[in-house]
Every structure is written in C-alpha cells, then in structure tokens.
C-alpha cells in the first residue's frame, strides 16, 4: 500500500536548537499512527509543520505522492489535513453549527445557510459516532463534546488526515473510551489519524504503529502489538524506568482535617489526611479543585474549619498558614508558583522572604538567598544549575523542581500539591513522584489534587472524588477501579 503522507529528512531549527532533526515518517491510508515523546521531543513542532503553522528549514513532505508545503493552516485544510489542538479553538458564545461553519459558511442570499450545515453535521455525526446537538451552545458543552465539535469541524472541511494532539488529556475515562470508539470508526472509513500522546496504554489500545521521538530525532517506528510499554518508555526517555515504589502505608494521626468547608463553588465537604498518607482528590477539571486549593491556601474566604495538626487555621493569611506548616504546590506553576522573569534565587525565596533568615528588619539578606539557592539547586538537580537564570529560561520540569524545592525546604507538615506533573515528561514526573513518596515515608501528609488517574493510582493511599464542588466519596486505592472512579467523576455515588 502506498503511503498517504511521506515525510523525508524534515528539519526545523529555532536559533541554535534543532527542534526536529532529519525526521522520516510514513502514514498509511486508514492508519492510526501514534506519535510518542517527552515534552520538548519535537512532537508539537512536527505537527505544526504538517499543519502549516511553521515552515521547515529542509526536508520534504508529500501527500498522496504530491509535494505538500502548507504555508498556513488554510492550505493544510484545503489539502485535507485537520488538526485538533489540546486547547480548543471554539467560540463559546456560538452554537455547534456556527462554530463548525465559521470561516467556510455556505451563503444563502445575504445570510448563512445554517440549515444545510446542521444537516451535514447530523450525517457526519452518525457516520463517525460523534453525536452532538448542532444547535447547542458550545459554552454549555462538556470538554468531551467540545472535542467532538473540533473533530466534526475537521471532517466538515473534508479532512482525510486528522491530527489529534494529546486528545485525552482533559477527558474522563468514559469520554476517552468514546473517543477511541470514534477513532476506530474513522479508521474504517479510510481516515488516517496521527495521535499524539504520552500515555503508553492509550498508544497500545489505539494505534497500529507508533513512532517515538527523542530530542527531535526519530528513535524508532514500531508495530504497536509487537512492542511493550517498557520498551516504548525506554525509547522515549533513553533509559529504562521503574514504576514508583510505594511501600505499604502506616498512617498516623490526622495532620490535615477539613470540616464543613464551604466557599464559592465548593462544598460543604470534609476529609482528613493522616501522617504518612497521600490522599488524592480526583475529578474532571473545573469541579471545584481550584476553589479547594484557594480555600486551603488562604487565598479566598471560606466557611468551615481547617485544622493543621490539630491547630485551627481559621482566618490566618497565606504567610501564617505557610509558617504553621502548610506547603503548597499550585496547579499553575507559571501563573501562581513562580515569578518567571526573576532569577531562580529569588523564586526559591518567594514564600519566605519576609522573615529571617531571608531578611532582617525589612532588608533582604541576598547573600543568604544565594547560598540557600545554591544548596537547593544542587540538591534538586535543577538544570541549568544556575541560580541567576530567570525561571522563564527553565523547562517545565525544572521549573517544577524549583517550586518543589522551595516548598520542601520549609519542611511542611502538610503538602498540598495540585497537578504536580501537568506538562512534565516522564523523567521529571518520576522525580516529583519520588519526592512526594519521600514526604509520605517521612510521616508527612500529602493532599494530591490531580486530573491524571495514572498519577493518582501510582501515588494515592486513598482517593476522594470531587464532583461539582462536593466529595462523591473516598475509597482506598487498593479497592478502587478506574471505572468506579470514572463513574464518580461523572457524579455517581460510590
């Protein structure tokens, strides 16, 4: 069978960085081809080249034997290439049909013929198992349905090649299953799919072949059912990785106790995290996770009681809570956790600069900051090991190391971590996991708020599920199943 897409020696440089280095890649008609790689491996650069968002420096691409050089996404769409980004490009105030037609509206007189769009959408939806109400407003749709709209948008424009960029990142397990079913339907109808992921089980479930990228180079293209997750992981990071070891828990007394906590969009809810225990809060994004973090951190007003090692936190402010032993790794390290233009040294002092030994009577002790930073940078293996580098210059994994180093240096009794590995590659994730498990072994309490079920099952002793601001229940992780947690994430009682 001749290939639909043939990529030969494709190269893209940004300054001195070679983001994509002589990449060869083939996509057969009706094939689901997974693209696997760590962050910064070049996956997104590769796809942006195929979608006309970037221009290559050298190399060639041909589509159905014809040279393919898209100068813009418009060219890509005309050539039959569609892409669904991680962040959807939909207009919430418009309906599904309006969003799909946008930029390619069928005219009727001076108006738009939305009726024909709706009719065509219904046909496409039935054909590809992508049911969605064409007249619904996008703002009212769940993440899973919005993704369907994006896919339908591509098919409406007669895409024969569909690029899905980490499509399951924000989906519940059930929504992911539905997506997989739809992808198999595409395949039966001869649509080719490039499926970007860093979740090995999905790659195995869905793809016929998998290409692994590392540092801009193809390190292998394998037939999926002749490989193993271990082999893929090894190819991806360049060394073999062991899953995190979690010795049996010996929980002590409750270090964090929350009773009747209530805030905007949250609660009332209550839970305990005991010494030497990791309690995970699972849930689909936007079900009160941020309100919970804000209430615990002291960022927002809340009712109810929060006790830290028996001491009520009451109306204590952010700094008093930190000094009482509450560490916090916020979900968004770039927006909340770091001041990107400032050097690593300053970021490591960010939560304690107001008190000795960081400052004395209002004057900063910068020499202390420097030695403190030097120690932490070495201890946490921050790269580049330069305390003067602005936080913005670090990769996501190293930024997270800085945040973690700062919070752990304050020796908290309770650490609240939210989505600690979002956007991190496997190596950096493993590092974060080992630090959290160290904390657990040291008899501290960890509250892990996460959207990633793999992470939750790897780390948690108990799993609580947040749905519309309330806890649907708490289950020990040994007896929990993905399906059970998934149902709770959709609002069913345990």
């Amino acid at each position, binding site marked *: 069978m001749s290939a639909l897409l043939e990529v030969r020696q494709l190269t893209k440089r940004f300054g001195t960085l070679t983001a994509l280095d002589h990449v060869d890649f083939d996509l057969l008609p009706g094939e689901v081809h997974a693209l696997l790689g760590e962050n910064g491996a070049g996956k997104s650069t590769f796809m942006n080249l195929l979608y006309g968002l970037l221009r290559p420096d050298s190399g060639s691409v041909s589509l159905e034997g014809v040279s393919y050089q898209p100068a813009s996404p418009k060219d890509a769409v005309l050539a039959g290439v569609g892409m669904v980004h991680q962040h959807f490009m939909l207009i919430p105030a418009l309906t599904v049909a309006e969003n799909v037609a946008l930029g390619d509206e069928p005219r009727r007189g001076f108006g738009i013929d939305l009726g024909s769009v709706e009719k065509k959408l219904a046909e496409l939806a039935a054909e590809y198992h992508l049911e969605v109400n064409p007249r619904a407003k996008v703002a009212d749709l769940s993440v899973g349905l919005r993704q369907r709209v994006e896919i339908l948008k591509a098919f409406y424009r007669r895409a024969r090649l569909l690029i899905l960029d980490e499509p399951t990142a924000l989906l519940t397990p059930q929504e992911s299953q539905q997506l997989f079913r739809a992808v198999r339907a595409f395949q039966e109808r001869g649509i080719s799919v490039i499926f970007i992921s860093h979740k090995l089980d999905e790659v195995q479930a869905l793809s016929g072949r998998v290409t692994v990228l590392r540092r*801009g180079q193809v390190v292998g293209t394998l037939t999926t059912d002749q490989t193993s997750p271990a082999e893929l992981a090894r190819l991806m990071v360049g060394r073999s990785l062991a899953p995190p070891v979690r010795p049996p828990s010996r929980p002590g007394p409750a270090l964090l106790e929350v009773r009747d906590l209530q805030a905007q969009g949250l609660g009332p809810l209550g839970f305990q995290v005991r010494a030497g225990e990791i309690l995970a809060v699972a849930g689909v994004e936007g079900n009160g996770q941020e309100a919970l973090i804000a209430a615990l951190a002291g960022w927002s007003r809340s009712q109810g009681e929060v006790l830290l090692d028996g001491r009520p936190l009451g109306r204590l402010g952010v700094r008093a809570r930190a000094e009482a032993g509450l560490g916090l790794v916020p979900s968004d390290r770039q*927006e909340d*956790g*770091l001041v990107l233009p400032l050097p690593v040294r300053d970021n490591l002092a960010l939560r304690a600069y107001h008190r000795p030994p960081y400052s004395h009577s*209002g004057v900063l002790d910068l020499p202390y900051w420097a030695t403190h930073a030097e120690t932490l940078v070495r201890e946490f293996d921050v790269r580049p090991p330069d305390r003067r580098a602005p936080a913005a210059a670090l990769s996501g994994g190293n930024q997270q190391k800085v945040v973690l180093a700062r919070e752990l240096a304050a020796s908290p009794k309770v650490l609240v971590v939210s989505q600690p590995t979002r956007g991190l590659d496997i190596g950096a994730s493993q590092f974060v996991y080992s630090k959290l498990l160290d904390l657990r072994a040291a008899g501290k309490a960890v509250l892990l708020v996460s959207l990633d079920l793999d992470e939750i099952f790897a780390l948690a002793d108990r799993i609580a599920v947040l749905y519309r601001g309330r806890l649907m229940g708490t289950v020990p992780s040994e007896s929990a199943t993905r399906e059970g947690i998934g149902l709770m994430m959709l609002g069913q009682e345990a």
Partner: protein
Amino acid sequence: MRGVRLLWPLLAILIAFAVGGLLTWAFGHDPFSAYGALISGSLGSGYAISTTLTDALPLMITGLAVALSFQSGLFNIGASGQYWLGAIVAVWLGYSLKLPTPLHLLVCLLAGALAGALWAALIPGLAKAFRGANEVITTLMMTYVATYLGHYLIEGGPMQAPGYTPQSPHLLPSAILPNLVSGTQLSVGIFLAPLLAALTWFLLSRTRLGFSLRISGYNPRAARYAGVRPVVAILAALGLSGALAGLAGAVQMMGVDHRLFDSFGTSYGYTGIVVALLARNNPFGVLLAALLFGVLSSGANAMQINAGVPFHLVDVIQGVIIFFVAAEGLMRYLRLRSGGNS
C-alpha cells in the same frame, strides 16, 4: 541578554537622531551644524551644562516616580498631578511659614512629597485597592483636578499675591534652595537626584517592601501566593511614586521658579513616563535618560538661534525616541512568536 537590554534604548536614540537629521536635511538645513549647535548649546560651556542639569532635574525625579510605579506593575500616568500638588504645598508653606533655613527647607520638601503621596494614594490608590478602579484613569483625572486647583488658587484664590498678576507670593529666602552656579538657575537640588535614585534602587532591590512591590508588578497571582497583601502593595507603590513626583514639584519651586505662576505647564510628569520607559525603569538609567532630555531641551534654543533649525525638530526627535522605545516591546513580541516552542 543584559547587553541586548542596554543596546536597544541606545539604538532607539541613535535611530531617532538619524531620523531627525534626515528631516533637518529634507527641510534644507545642515544636520551636522544643527546637531553641533544642539550639543554646544547644551554641553559646550559651564552655563550650558548648568541649564541642561536644571532642565533634567525635574525629569530625573518624576522619572524615578514613574519607574517605581512601573516596577510595581502600576501605571501612574498622573505624576503630573502629584508634581503640581507637591509644588502648591511647598510654595504655600514656603511663603507662609517662618522657620530657620534648614528646617524650612526640610519642611517644604517633606510636605511636598507628602502631598504628592496622598494625591496618588488616597483616591487612585484606595479606589484601585478596594474597587479595582484602573489607576491609569484615576491618576490622569486627578491630574486635571490638580491643575485646575492650582489655577484657582492663584487666580483670585487664597494663594494669589497682592496685585493683578495671577501668581503666588515669592518664597521666603529661608525656603529657597541655594543656587549652585551663579548666573544660572541650577540649585543644590541637583544633588538630590543621585541620592533619590540610590534610595529608589535600594528600596526596590534590597528591601522586603521593594521585593513585594516587584513581585506584585511581575505577577500579581504569584504575589498572592507569596502572601503579599494587594491593598498594601497598591497603596505603597502609588504612595511612594506620588511622593517622588510631589518632591519633584517642591524641588522645582524651591530651586527654580520660587513661586507658582499661572503659566505652569504640566509636562514634567508626562515626560517622566518617557524617561522611565527609555531607562527601562532602572533608577540609575533614569538619571541618564533625563539627562538626554535635558540636553534636547536646553540645546533646542541654541539650535534655532545658531543653526536656524526650528526647535520643534527636538520634539520630533523626542517623538521618534518614544516610538522606538515602544517599538521594542513589539519586537520582543514578534521574536517570541517567530521563536515558538516545540
């Protein structure tokens, strides 16, 4: 990285002078003799240098005021208003109080600073801290209030000197900053500029308050996470910025004008914004940038007299500098876009 940061403002200045030269040439003048006149008129003699420093001094202090607010993430566009409040209060105390010299000077300077601080912190500061009112709008509106208040006070108001001229009484000798170079308007006030720049630098980069202000400026959400109370940061930033602007007004009155005139312009506060931008909010850079504007303003007359080039050409050069300093933001944005990330 650091080299590039310094390079761009210099490049902006060079390009501005080149454009100004082209324009001079296009209108039939010799650009080299024009710039020669500009330089000799601003730096060519003791008198010229004194005039340049005199013109630069209020810009140095208002530039520091604006730079401090910019570093704190607040856009105090109304340094002009705070400048006039400082001027009004310093003049009022300067002719009405009877105090021995050093004390009188100190009281007038501090009162001017306090007036500027309150003008910025009280209404714009509190409105921003508790109601989220945009300080660009409020400080600008307060500038109109300050200007009209000044006019009222000396046009039939309580500060008008006897007679028909709309002006305040002359300051008492005890409230006048001693002259530094006789025959010029340069006062000992010029020594305040490096002192204030050093204080501003120390505050921002070496104190707890300054760090709180800077992290609020870079990233308000991270500041919240660091435990900075936004209300405190906003009031401190606008108050300190206003204090500097008010001090600029007081120094100008006590060193140069010695009384409030009806003809007061309001431009020092606004030019201070350009000075801060050109200096990239660096306190010591502010001194240099203000000096450049001092050169432009004091050399402009010489350029007109000696080279026959209209001094409005200097406005053109200033405009082009502003344009290119602002364009740098655009360049950075374009670089980010074309750089992309993988």
